[in-house]
């Protein structure tokens, strides 16, 4: 794919993705005021959100699972040993955002 095509696909395509951006440019083209577009309301609040819209029930007969947990729950395999099946630390050598594409080998393909 030619580089101009990549520019069109990623950059121009990305700019076109933002609906508010498109709306703003359309408003600008019509001579309107763009400053009222796209303002954000503040949704900050204490605690995790209750998406059902109702407060979580308290008390009752449910057992409290939180007291025994000190991390996120492990729903699948429980890792009990080191070795190839355990998680390797990916963070040690990272000092920037990850590079998923280019991987440069020190010695080329030799």
């Amino acid at each position, binding site marked *: *794919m030619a*580089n*101009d095509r*990549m*520019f069109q*696909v*990623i*950059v*121009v*395509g*990305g*700019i*076109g*993705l*933002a*609906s*508010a*951006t*498109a*709306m*703003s*440019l359309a408003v600008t083209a019509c001579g309107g005021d*763009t400053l009222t*577009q*796209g303002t*954000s*309301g503040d949704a*900050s609040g204490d605690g995790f959100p209750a998406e059902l819209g109702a407060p979580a029930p308290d008390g009752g007969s449910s057992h409290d699972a939180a007291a025994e947990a000190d991390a996120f729950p492990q729903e699948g395999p429980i890792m009990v040993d080191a070795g*190839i*099946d*355990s*998680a*390797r*630390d*990916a*963070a*040690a050598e*990272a*000092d*920037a*955002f*990850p*590079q*998923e*594409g*280019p*991987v*440069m*080998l*020190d*010695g*080329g*393909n*030799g």
Partner: protein
Amino acid sequence: MTVRAVDVLEARAIRDGARRAIPWDALDASALDAKKREAVGRTWADRYRQEHLAVGAFSLLAQELAEIGCDPIVLSLVTRAAADEVRHAEVCRRVAVALLGEDAVPARYRGLPKVPKHEDATAETRTLLHVVEMCCLSETVTGVYFTEMLARTTNAASRAALESLLEDEIDHGRVGWAYVAERRRDGTLDGLAEALPALVTRAVGRSIDDATRSLDVADPSMEAFGYLGNTVGSAVLRRALNDVIVPGFASLDLDVAPLRALIAERGWA
């Protein structure tokens, strides 16, 4: 510039690399000698680690963007990207295992990328700089790099794996440009133009320098399995920087003169 609004409710249907089936049985690299198989496998193994780190990077961006607010399409794509990267990591792991063997590749990774903290910046500026570095630079470069890699990849399984990644990477780059366009509309791009040389040096320049230090001869037998050598890779990175990224920022009216001067000074043109 022609733009088309995309409703957030339509966004999930636009792209999804997970829809692509990968014929893993076709990933037979026995035609490669051990040395070449090791070299190609190492790139996929390292890419596996980078894809894992990208999960944390996009999760960070999602939290930062949710805190300060952004267009819903941006938040939708960034949160989806974190899940995309989990799948990408597994795709890369399986390619690496096919080339190197199960024992040579970790079954899983843990850990987060140590991203620049921009401690003196406001939350709004820090978020902008993070999105630019991750999406407008790293992911855009990745999209161009994978496109060139795909053009040289002939093994059916490797092609399908790469197409599966590339389909998502395009959106991961696009979301950065969408966000910068949104911030431009709001008049909140302060600090970006001045920061670009440092961001580009870290996200693209170092890879160009690394590749240029160790140029090689392109090997079609290795490229067949999803591999770009340093000579081709260096050229692709330069094109991505000069033909896509710099014009991208220029199209959003950012002052790219300092960036162009840096590119000339470092020989990245």
